[in-house]
């Protein structure tokens, strides 16, 4: 199996995953994930046709609920919100 090495851009992945990684951890984490990815890559030794007919863990189909509304005590949820203004959640601006 061809090793996956240079193509790993940890900064880009961390940005996609929204995880801040300190400069000092960067090297160590890159090394760890490279080792793991190349271990995972072992599965590509196995030559099998890839079926796109999707596998689902559950053998069930057509499970649904009726369209009946129900209320929930919203304040119990708001109690957990770290930053609020009135009943609004406060978020830093996007961009």
């Amino acid at each position, binding site marked *: 199996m061809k090793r996956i090495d240079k193509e790993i851009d940890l900064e880009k992945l961390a940005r996609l995953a*929204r995880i801040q990684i300190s400069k000092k951890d960067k090297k160590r984490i890159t090394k760890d994930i490279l080792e793991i990815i190349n271990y995972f890559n072992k599965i590509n030794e196995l030559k099998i046709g890839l079926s*796109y007919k999707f596998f*689902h863990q559950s053998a069930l189909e057509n499970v649904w609920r009726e369209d*009946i509304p129900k209320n*929930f005590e919203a304040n119990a949820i708001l109690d957990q919100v770290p930053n609020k203004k009135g009943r*609004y959640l406060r*978020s830093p601006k*996007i*961009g």
Partner: protein
Amino acid sequence: MRELEVKTLSDMSIKIGLEVHCQLTKLKSKLFCPCSSDYRDKEPNTNICPICMGLPGTLPTLNKEALFYALKVCLALNSEPNKRILFFRKNYYYPDLPKNFQITQYDRGGGVPFSSGGVLKLSSGKEIRIRRMNLEEDPAKIFYEGSITSSRYSLIDYNRAGIALLEIVTEPDMSNPKEAREFLERLKGLLEHLEVSEPDLEGAMRCDANISLMDGTRVEIKNISSFKEVEKALNFEIARQKALISKGIKVKRETRHWDEARRITVSLREKEEEEDYRYFPEPDLVPIAINEEMVKQIILTLPELPEKREKRYVKELGLSETLAKVIAYDRDLMKLFEDSLKYCNLPKKIGSWIVNDILAYLNRKNLTLKDLNLDANKLAKLAEYSEEYKVSDKKLKELLNELISGKKNFLEVLKTLKKEELVQKDEVLRIVDSVIKSNSKALEDYRKNKKVLDYFMGKVMEISKGKIDAKEVRNLLKEKIEEIIK
């Protein structure tokens, strides 16, 4: 002015496609949780539960009715529902997205859209092809403290999060902004007919557009709030791109925002890197298998569709094509029309009133039918009485308009109608008497030649300036003259 602009550039060279998001507002609960689907006018963050807030440990469950509503729309648009539908997660971070992924469908990576293909016809007969439809969850609403530019924070209200949303994507088949607007209006009419949505509710139907000129670069326009704005935004964009092309500047492939206040489209700051949504199948929802039985069941619930209805109005009720088209595609007018016919069998009269008087009035005043104190029963009664009391068309129109505008209430209108008939009868009698008296020579002639009645008729009609019913005058004259010469 606008017409001119569009025509200077050959229609053939413009391609417009639309991406419409429509809430299934007629549902009682959200798509994946039992919160109410009626989130409007509620205190912020009161219409929420652990599921639609993405609390740890919660799982989505599919609202069966949402699935059926979506299938209804598929069938009405001739869009083929896929046999086995999987929900996919679209992963991206945004404060309005409680789980930081949206549950939707995906047409690659082993997935299929909810439905593929389909067609919606415009009044010209042109067919706009549907590419696909998806059933997905609506994000929350974001507000800003102060203005969007000055505020330091966003404020989020999750009441809307999780509302069932139907995404309808067309092929780029529209060749001018007018067609785009008509497409949206027809689609809106259809969704209303199917009773799955009330697109007039604030934010219930939203639209993005893409446009390319002369097979050039495709530009997307987002943030368009209404159908009127779609037309305006597209017109602006055509003018902008034409100007660029004529100067020899290449049109950039980009996404632009419609700035309603300034009436221009503005380029969005380009993203540093392409968003990678990392779609994969939602493990918490099981596949949906669409079978014949389900489809049959839904077909039974489908109401008569506008196209079919239009044909029936012309063929069976004798409406003109213009009247039939207007009424068949507008749900409110259609309902008023059909309901009125339950009380009286005067389709042509009612149809004409609805389009030529009522709709004209609504358009003039920028109102909707709901604003009027008018129902099918009143309309039908008025039509029937007008037949019975032989009131002049002119007077009748006057009364109808007074009723529409609320100047007179229904009872007053009826009273006037009766009085009008009496007044009219007195007047006719008076004229007939005087004409007979002042034409004794003709009276003698009548004894020999009954055709002289026409002479009297002419006189009476001349004096009354044609305001009265000729048939009635003839009968009355005949009656009076025969009496005298007897």
